[in-house]
């Protein structure tokens, strides 16, 4: 019987976790990658003693942009158009994919190179381009690896983080027909050689956007490898896809965000390449695309914007720090969540993109420890947003009936002191009958992995009463 892997979809979160939680190799890969990222981040965050103020200012700038998003978007559109770009608007993932495929496939164009874009992943762009008949090549090394493996990314900034060098070596040897090597230098060299040829023959370059500067209509794209520069330089057409929340007012504010993003994402003061693209190639320039298309996507963002309790989720700059620091992410990896956007931020925004019924398990897949909110460079209170989702999901009676029954019973009992005290007494009398082999109380599910304490002979209240009755 062949084993069919569970589809990486949010409704499968339970099974996806079960398949991963006892995998020591995955755990090792995750621990190594997340620890390295956190150590590197801490070293450069220490450059400033006012990191907290930087976060606060960044938070307020992003909020300001959302408060005036109509103004800033109009200005951005005007300026980008004046610079020669074509600005398009898409209501949902399907619209965006259709629009991009239509532009890409014009004039018989056949080959697209793509640099890493989470928005692209969100709308499943690569598959859409392939269905539209374009050979589409992921060019970020991590994305290239998972494209070869036919897997979705498992991290916002490091898509192949779940794989070890050995697994990647095996994959390259199978798919590219090279001699097996697990040396990262060698594997990178092979990918460079293969992809360089793809860049030179590509007709279309597709990219995401990190920031969009309203005052000049400029796109800002950050990266380390150079593949985004190549994708936006060599092909004749550059198509960029972004949500409207990427807007920033001007270059002054950009300077703060670049400072925060590099440090939070990869522990760099500034990433290797920051491209600032304003329109297509100008008449006096030697290279660059002849056409620049900017596709601005809604896909639930406007709904989020109108939702006062969850609006903050739009501040996210996709650095991935909340994933690295999350103890749950460190155990299950991105695929465990079944969502393109994993980790704390993923659990906040996936219910918007995939619907709260399909993603109902995600906001609960957190111990609410709050490490995510503390590390977030724009200070989104991620764990509080998870609480907001929990209230909406449980409030709509989407929890399991057993859970609802337990909660209802607990509250009915705790609402009446006498009943609560009686329940405690019953627990003490009958508790010994529920003894687990480890000597503790047998509690369903809990006792499978941990000992639960046996109830003590007396409650606090009983101890306190006895104390009161004692002659002083």
């Amino acid at each position, binding site marked *: 019987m062949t084993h069919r892997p569970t589809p990486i979809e949010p409704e499968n979160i339970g099974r996806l976790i079960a398949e991963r939680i006892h995998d020591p190799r995955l755990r090792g890969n995750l621990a190594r990658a997340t620890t390295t990222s956190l150590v590197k981040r801490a070293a450069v965050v220490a450059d400033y003693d006012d990191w907290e103020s930087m976060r606060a200012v960044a938070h*307020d700038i992003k909020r300001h942009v959302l408060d005036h998003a109509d103004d800033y978007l109009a200005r951005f559109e005007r300026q980008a158009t004046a610079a020669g770009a074509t600005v398009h*608007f898409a209501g949902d993932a399907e619209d965006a994919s259709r629009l991009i495929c239509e532009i890409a496939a014009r004039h018989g164009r056949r080959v697209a190179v793509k640099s890493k874009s989470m928005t692209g992943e969100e709308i499943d762009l690569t598959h859409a381009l392939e269905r539209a008949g374009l050979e589409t090549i992921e060019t970020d*090394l991590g994305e290239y690896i998972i494209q070869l493996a036919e897997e979705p990314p498992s991290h916002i900034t490091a898509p192949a983080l779940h794989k070890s060098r050995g697994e990647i070596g095996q994959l390259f040897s199978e798919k590219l027909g090279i001699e097996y090597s697990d040396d990262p230098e060698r594997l990178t060299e092979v990918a460079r050689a293969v992809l360089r040829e793809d860049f030179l023959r590509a007709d279309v370059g597709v990219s995401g956007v990190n920031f969009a500067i309203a005052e000049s209509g400029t796109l800002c794209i950050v990266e380390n490898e150079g593949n985004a520069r190549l994708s936006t330089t060599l092909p004749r057409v550059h198509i960029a896809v972004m949500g409207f929340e990427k807007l920033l007012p001007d270059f002054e504010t950009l300077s703060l965000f670049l400072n925060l993003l590099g440090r939070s994402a990869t522990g760099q003061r500034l990433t290797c*390449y*920051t491209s600032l693209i304003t329109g297509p*190639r100008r008449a006096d320039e030697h290279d*660059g695309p002849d056409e620049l298309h900017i596709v601005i996507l809604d896909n639930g963002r406007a709904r989020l914007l109108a939702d006062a309790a969850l609006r903050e989720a739009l501040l996210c700059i996709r650095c991935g720090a909340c994933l690295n620091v999350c103890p749950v992410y460190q155990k299950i990896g991105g695929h465990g969540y079944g969502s393109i956007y994993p980790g704390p931020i993923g659990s906040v925004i996936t219910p918007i993109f995939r619907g709260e019924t399909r993603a109902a398990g995600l906001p609960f897949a957190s111990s609410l420890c709050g490490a995510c909110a503390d590390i977030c460079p724009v200070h989104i209170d991620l764990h509080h947003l998870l609480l907001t989702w929990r209230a909406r999901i449980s409030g709509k009676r989407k929890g399991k009936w057993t859970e609802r029954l337990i909660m209802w019973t607990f509250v009915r009992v705790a609402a009446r002191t006498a009943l609560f005290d009686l329940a405690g007494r019953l627990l003490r009398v009958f508790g010994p009958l529920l003894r687990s082999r480890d000597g503790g109380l047998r509690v369903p599910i809990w006792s499978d992995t941990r000992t639960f304490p046996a109830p003590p002979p007396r409650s606090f209240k009983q101890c306190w009463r006895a104390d009161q009755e004692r002659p002083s």
Partner: protein
Amino acid sequence: MSARDRMFAALRAAATATDRDTERMSLHARLDALAFRAGAADVALFTTRARESGSTVLRCADLSDAARTIVALVEEGQRCILADDPLCASMGLAAGLAGKSCSVTAVRDITLGRDNPDARRAYADAHVGITVARAGLADSGAIIISSSDCESRSVSLLPARHIAMLPAGRIVASLRQAAPLLRHLALDATSAVTLVGGPSKTADIEKVLVTGVHGPGEFVIVIIDDAEGQ
């Protein structure tokens, strides 16, 4: 209603009535009170930070010193592509490189126009691309380059090695101080500005740092203290 109209209607509905520009000004003031704004435009700091990011930094007294240094960096017979910057012309770099039997091509001589695979190949096969930086950022050790009639995007991207000259006077404390320059370049001058903070690199395989993925594997910054010419 078009997708555009729907998006604008939604954004307008969520907008607040506060004054945008007053708010923006007060945010600028808060931004300018942050520590990262207050660093020094310091060559030593620039050098340290650039080296920490894997860049090679060399410091030269003047243009002829810089020309000698660059010629010494390039190996015999390598293919070089040179930006048409007045600085390069004034220092006699092309002649120096030719003396080392290097082939020297000026950016203006490569028409990377529509469907010219040969031009792309010329860039991809080059060993060295030489450019001039618009500015240097002391707090990150990065430089700012831009596309123009004398400098292509490809010259700093496709060759195996990128050498950038940086007149010391162009070093500013941080990206914040470079904001007016970036605004000028974007609004008036060019389609492409790039901040280069080191050699092309990746850590996508087990977080092991490997340089030279898609862009130049080696990035050399030649700081010129006196770039005013002899």
